[in-house]
């Protein structure tokens, strides 16, 4: 009996020891995980915060020194979580996360009070930058930074260069406009494409065929379209004088309205208001390739003697110019879309390259305002060249302060 009891006791003891032996590592393992969770990365230090300069407000810039465990030490930092509260005691809400290695964060909030990420101006804001370990197993909060207030600025000091350029350019424009108004003769060199416009209108008159004027796909406020309106005015005046037909299919309804006004005024200036037909300027569609299909069809059916493409053009430039070329029309084009100029050059008889389009409107109009602005542009270019040469020397000699003068901040 005693022997049986001893055996039973030994078996129980052995079983208990096995059970303990199995439990022990589990305890150690759980302790190890707990240790990892408890010992997080070291917190960030040297927290700084200030209102984001040169903006409309609702934004704060936070800076810090990285955690000693960021890329070194435990090397356990995955990133930094930025939290905001209106109270130093919290609660804090997350407003952003940046990966390890970063030392600053721009908290740009919404202006709208109802928006989730609204940041009030002129209100005490408190921030925390928590170091987050890999897999978010541990988060070490920083000290609370604040109060910081955001506010809007009336002037963006990062754009002084733009203000100075505006003032200089405005000065030259006003100066030359006044000079032109005073009767001074302002020289503009002849521009080949524009000289050809009158000949092309004459050719259309002789052939008894219409003139097609395409204003492109730009809006009424695009510089190229505005320049094109001036040229259209000149073309329409000549067309009215020669009693030739004019067709102006438009892509934009507002461009159509302005073009109608321009053509109507030109007919009145030519002393033939009764010849003006409102339908000669008509709307087609605001779909790019449908517009192209319609204008191409017009070219082949009406067979215009002259096609004038002036304004903003995109992928349709070659489709239009190639069809016009096939139809045997004389073609004059002008655009400031650099990618489209090559297509016009290969398919048109005359092409106004970039700024020549703006110059053409001044050249044709001979209006003091346009001439003055063209002269101001030339002065702008002269200043450009001088500044570039100084900049080249500065870059060669390493004068970064001069180069920094032209750095524009958004």
């Amino acid at each position, binding site marked *: 009996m005693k022997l049986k009891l001893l055996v039973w006791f030994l078996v129980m003891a052995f079983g208990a020891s096995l059970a303990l032996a199995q439990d022990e590592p589990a305890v150690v393992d759980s302790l190890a995980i707990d240790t990892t969770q408890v010992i997080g990365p070291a917190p960030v230090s040297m927290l700084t915060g200030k209102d984001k300069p040169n903006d409309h407000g609702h934004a704060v810039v936070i800076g810090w020194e990285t955690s000693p465990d960021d890329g070194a030490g435990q090397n356990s930092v995955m990133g930094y979580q930025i939290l905001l509260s209106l109270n130093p005691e919290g609660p804090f809400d997350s407003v952003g996360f940046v990966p390890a290695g970063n030392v600053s964060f721009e908290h740009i909030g919404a202006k709208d009070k109802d928006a989730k990420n609204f940041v009030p101006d002129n209100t005490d804001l408190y921030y925390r930058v928590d170091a987050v370990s890999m897999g978010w197993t541990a988060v070490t909060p920083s000290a609370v930074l604040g109060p910081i207030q955001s506010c809007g600025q009336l002037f963006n000091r990062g754009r002084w260069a733009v203000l100075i350029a505006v003032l200089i*350019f405005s000065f030259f424009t006003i100066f030359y406009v006044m000079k032109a108004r005073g009767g001074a003769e302002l*020289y503009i060199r002849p521009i080949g494409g524009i000289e050809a416009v009158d000949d092309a209108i004459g050719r259309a008159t002789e052939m008894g065929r219409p003139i097609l004027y395409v204003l492109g796909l730009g809006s009424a406020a695009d510089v190229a379209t505005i320049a094109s309106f001036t040229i259209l005015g000149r073309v329409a005046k000549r067309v009215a004088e020669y009693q030739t037909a004019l067709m102006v299919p438009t892509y934009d309804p507002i461009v159509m309205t302005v073009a109608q006004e321009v053509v109507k005024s030109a007919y009145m200036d030519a002393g033939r208001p009764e010849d003006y037909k409102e339908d000669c300027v008509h709307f087609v569609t605001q779909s790019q390739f*449908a517009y192209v299909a319609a204008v191409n069809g017009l070219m082949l059916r009406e067979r215009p003697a002259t096609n004038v493409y002036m304004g903003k053009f995109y992928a349709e430039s070659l489709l239009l110019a190639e069809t016009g070329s096939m139809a045997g029309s004389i073609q004059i084009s002008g655009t400031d879309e650099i990618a489209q100029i090559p297509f016009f050059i290969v398919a048109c008889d005359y092409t106004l390259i970039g700024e020549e389009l703006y110059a053409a409107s001044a050249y044709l109009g001979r209006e003091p305002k346009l001439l003055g602005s063209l002269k101001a542009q030339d002065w702008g270019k002269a200043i450009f060249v001088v500044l570039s040469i100084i900049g080249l020397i500065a870059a060669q000699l390493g004068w970064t302060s001069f180069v920094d003068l032209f750095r524009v901040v958004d």
Partner: protein
Amino acid sequence: MRRSTYLIFGVVTVLFIFSWAIKALVIAGDGGNYLAQSFMVTFAAFLTLAIYSFLYEDNPLYKFAEHLFVGVSAAYWMCQAFWSTIVGNLIPRLSEGLSNYFMQPYQASPWNPAYIIPVVLGVLLLTRLSNKYGWLSRWPLAFIVGTTAGLNFIRYLRSDFIVQVSSTFVPLMSTKLHPWEGIGAFFSNFDLSATGQFAALLTNWVIFLGVFCGIVYFFFSKEHTGTFGRASKIGIWILMITFGASFGYTVMGRISLLVGRITFLFGDWLGLVQN
């Protein structure tokens, strides 16, 4: 219409119906509304071919495709503008009753008179339809052109002037990677690779001369004669070389569009190639 036109339309209609039937039979096993699906693919393929027929000459099929395209797109963009701008953006901010009528969620925000301005300007544009009050339509036009021109003035002055000026500040003798160590060192370490000193300096010189001569070409206040004229000629040559490169690059983009259409015709429609 001429008899030949009727004949062409008849043949094309028969071909279309035949093609539709074949396509419907092919995709019938795929489930879904195979009749409508096959009609769409076949119609799209026929419209594509109708547009391509313009390459031969203007013809009734092209005219049909053109007018359909223009009509559908004009109507589509008008509806799009009405529903996205007026119904989608304006009405929910102005009126709860109208928002409910158009089944748009009303955005109950404080009354903002700024939303009325575009309404008034839009209505003024419509006065163009009246002979008596047509002059009022010039006000919104002046507003649109003036505002955008003013905004663009700053934008272009910044991006096309100041940023461009600073982009030309490049060293002509040495770079950060390749400091100038004299003419002897330059030739003894002469390297034609893209990362070498020669290539870096050549790039900077091309930038400088290209910008300088290009600007001279666009100078309108002086006659292009003598040295000025020669610089202008170099400028136009540089522009033409640039345009040539740009032409080739863009043509490659257009080829990809053609490939897209051919893939549609031979893949989606005829099923001869796998997409």
